[in-house]
């Protein structure tokens, strides 16, 4: 029988939640790396026993952990992230130039076909790559060459938080950075171009045609329709039908178009999920009601999913890497909150229940579907 394994990165360690295909009874293991911030864990699509974790600390810096047995044991691998050449500068909050400084790995994206090949999105924003299972890392500097001097940190830092691989075109990859925007490469990371046409950030960018500087929070793709992309921007939910060449807004009837997560149904490329969050400064669900919104029409028309989610006095946030969707039928949807809850829906969002309620603040959620 199929099973699922949910990886939860938190402010104080990593947790692994496992269940059979019914996804009713859960086993919780952890914390791994207790006391450290775990920004992200992810398994290799080519070998589900191979996992990677970004373990980080303001005190002790960056550690990358690797598991070869599905998370039962771990070993630290290379943690040397050095920018290529002279790092240069990017824009600082006050508009001055500021030296590029490595702080942490936000996101780890294993390649689709080689468990030793992995990408890391880091703060200050850059893309690194390893081809030896994490032992050594090298920057793909073409990304920062894309007007990197104009990139500016968002409130949470200048992080490369989203890496999406196109399964149909080897070499095509997307990255998203707060607050620089979305970018695409068609040559495996050597050269990049901004793909921000159609984005409007009138409160942050006076130039309506600005190529970079947009605060993109997340991008999602259905692997069966890789030219269709969905985006949760700082404000606005958007869609592109041409691999990011042009975006248009699909916020429709959402109670607010601000939020962090966005993801796509495993089997329905036009079914999209977001969690609207009140902002700019409050960053909790509108009216204290935690609602996932689902569109079955690729955006514009959204339905609130509330069954099993708290509908009063709920003031948590759902961060950008904290939603995931399994591949079972019906697909399961998972998300974690800054209040330490991880919610699961085994029926594509119709009904929800918490797997755990009292973890440290959740930074990321990933899921593996196991045969």
């Amino acid at each position: 029988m199929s099973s699922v394994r949910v990886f939860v990165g938190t402010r104080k360690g990593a947790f692994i939640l496992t269940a059979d295909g019914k996804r009713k009874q859960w086993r919780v293991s952890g914390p791994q790396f207790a006391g450290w911030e775990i920004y992200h864990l992810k398994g290799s699509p080519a070998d589900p026993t191979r996992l990677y974790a970004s373990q980080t600390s303001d005190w002790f810096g960056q550690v990358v952990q690797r598991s070869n047995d599905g998370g039962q044991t771990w070993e630290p691998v290379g943690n040397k992230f050095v920018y290529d050449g002279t790092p240069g500068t990017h824009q600082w909050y006050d508009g001055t130039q500021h030296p590029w400084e490595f702080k942490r790995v936000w996101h780890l994206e294993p390649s689709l076909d080689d468990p030793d090949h992995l990408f890391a999105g880091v703060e200050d924003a850059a893309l690194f790559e390893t081809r030896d299972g994490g032992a050594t890392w090298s920057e793909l500097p073409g990304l920062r060459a894309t007007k990197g001097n104009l990139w500016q940190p968002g409130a949470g830092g200048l992080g490369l938080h989203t890496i999406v691989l196109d399964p149909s075109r080897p070499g095509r990859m997307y990255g998203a950075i707060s607050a620089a925007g979305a970018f695409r490469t068609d040559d495996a990371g050597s050269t990049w171009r901004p793909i921000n046409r159609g984005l409007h950030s009138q409160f942050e960018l006076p130039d309506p045609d600005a190529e970079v500087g947009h605060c993109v929070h997340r991008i999602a793709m259905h692997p069966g329709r890789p030219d269709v992309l969905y985006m949760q921007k700082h404000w606005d939910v958007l869609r592109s039908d041409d691999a990011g060449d042009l975006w248009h807004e699909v916020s429709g009837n959402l109670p607010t178009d601000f939020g962090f997560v966005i993801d796509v149904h495993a089997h329905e490329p036009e079914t999209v999920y977001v969690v609207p969050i009140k902002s700019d400064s409050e960053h909790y669900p509108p009216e204290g009601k935690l609602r996932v919104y689902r569109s079955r029409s690729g955006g514009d028309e959204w339905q609130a999913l509330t069954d099993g989610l708290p509908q009063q006095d709920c003031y948590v946030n759902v961060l950008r890497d904290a939603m995931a969707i399994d591949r079972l039928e019906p697909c399961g949807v998972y998300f974690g909150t800054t209040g330490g809850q991880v919610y699961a829906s085994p029926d594509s969002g119709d009904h929800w229940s918490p797997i755990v309620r009292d973890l440290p603040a959740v930074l990321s959620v990933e899921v593996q579907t196991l045969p």
Partner: protein
Amino acid sequence: MIRVILPAHLRTLARLSGEVALEVKAPATLGRLLDALEAAYPVLEGTVRDHTSKERRAFLRYFACKQDLSLEGADHPLPEPVVRGEEPFRIVGALAGG
């Protein structure tokens, strides 16, 4: 042998249960001690000092013989009681954060 006491998180990372004992070539300096620590436990590279600049990470301090050695340079000689193994060299995490 020079004795080094690490913060708990770094002991866990390096899979150590107590003090570290290190052989450091004379003259024993702060920089040579940290070089020896990283050579013996490569997993600690980058966790105490920056990989490239070798600067101490901001939220760590160095103490020995009731002296704060955090701001001393790599060539600073270690106190004699540390060199003789009578006193430990301590790497301490700042008491801050949540």
